């Protein structure tokens, strides 16, 4: 795992959704654990897209369930 990417994703979630940094781990489920709803998920994607100049297709990618899934997706993007 790219630690810098995780730290950035963690920071965005903390700032955007007023969470404690300790809450944000790779295993955490975005909806069930972090209680993000559809509006939150959309805003999270917007923030990540602005940060990484990357297009997430959240609706077409049901594999994104955890913080780790987001980090993995971004790592793939950055390695290209």
């Amino acid at each position: 795992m790219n630690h810098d990417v995780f730290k950035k994703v963690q920071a965005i979630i903390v700032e955007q959704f007023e969470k404690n940094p300790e809450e944000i781990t790779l295993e955490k489920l975005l909806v069930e654990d972090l209680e993000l709803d559809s509006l939150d998920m959309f805003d999270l994607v917007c923030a990540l897209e602005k940060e990484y100049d990357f297009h997430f297709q959240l609706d077409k990618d049901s594999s994104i369930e955890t913080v780790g899934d987001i980090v993995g997706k971004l790592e793939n993007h950055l390695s290209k």
Partner: protein
Amino acid sequence: MTRRVVITGIGFYSPIGDNLTDLRSNFEQMKSGVRTMTEWDKANGLNARIAGVVGQDDFSEIPRQYRRTMDRVAMMCALSLKRAVAQSGLSTSAVTSPRTGISFGSAMGGLETLFDYAEDVSHNSGFGRQNATAFLRFMSHTVSANLAVMFGIIGRNIPTSSACTASAQAIGTGYESIKYGMSDVMLVGGGEGLHYVEAGIFDSMGATAIGYNDNPEEASRPFDISRSGLVVSEGSGALVLEEYEHAKARGAVILGEMVGYATGCDGSHITLPSERGMESVMRDALNDARLNSSDIGYINAHATATPKGDIFESIAVHRVFGSTTPISSIKGYTGHMFGGGGAFETIVSLMALNESFLPANKNLVEIDPTCAPLDYIRAHRETPITAVMNNNFAFGGINTSIILKKI
């Protein structure tokens, strides 16, 4: 058969305080909430760099799930309503009853969010990377929509958006909803959040007070001969309106009775007010209240300190009341709260009723002889009164008049 409507809770934010003690103190000391806006230095071509500002920037009391879709205007209204509901003592089940509704309004919706959104779309991100909550923060009915979600309202929700009469119409809508049996409780009010675009809009129309950037407290001068325009400001007001028997049955403290309301339209000019329309709405409100003009002990005027508006209003008041009913506009202290003015000024009218305290016109040094001869309050008075009238008027020739009475 119609039903009686009483007020059982109030809450507000204004440039001169968020509680009745501070309000009264500032009225007594004739202290203004208008200040110089150094924050607006970046606004090119803006003449009037003054505004009435609410000293409240921490809204973390509102849970994030609600706050995320609220602009400043909705947040001020949300906390105002929270206080009003707490004062009313209404239970959660009463608030979330289908017989409880809501009506809130503002002139501009979430202007700060809209401005930032437009700027970002135009200069940075386009539409591809805009978040989902922006529209929910700036849409015209953002206040009523967000408050309904936060308070769990399942009854009627009637947002109002009529500029300077937005919250007055919200109060009127709530009053009529209860009076004619559609609801037992209505949560009503409105607000406005400050943004320099609003100042710029009125500045370029020649409607703002120019020349007071260094002495902002003297800028807003209703009925004064040297008045030159309005001062933009922000604020909010919320009231709990309740059917009289409903309030009595639960042992609520009743703050006053709303006995009359009317709204009407000039139908003549989009900005120029008509004394005929104003006169008509005051007479209609008196008829609704089944009161004579002599029953009204105090008139809270709309008077924004624009050259023509104050004259027309004074003429209309004179036609209905003659020269002996005490009248003041509190915009000398607060500036013009636009969508929040109607609700806040209704709360001030309620204070006048309950505390037998009539605030003076601030900055009224020499009455404009073109204004009709009225009993303009020059220094605050402590006078028992039994009924008050609050008037508000808006672009589009929309007029409102609200009458409150001691119970």
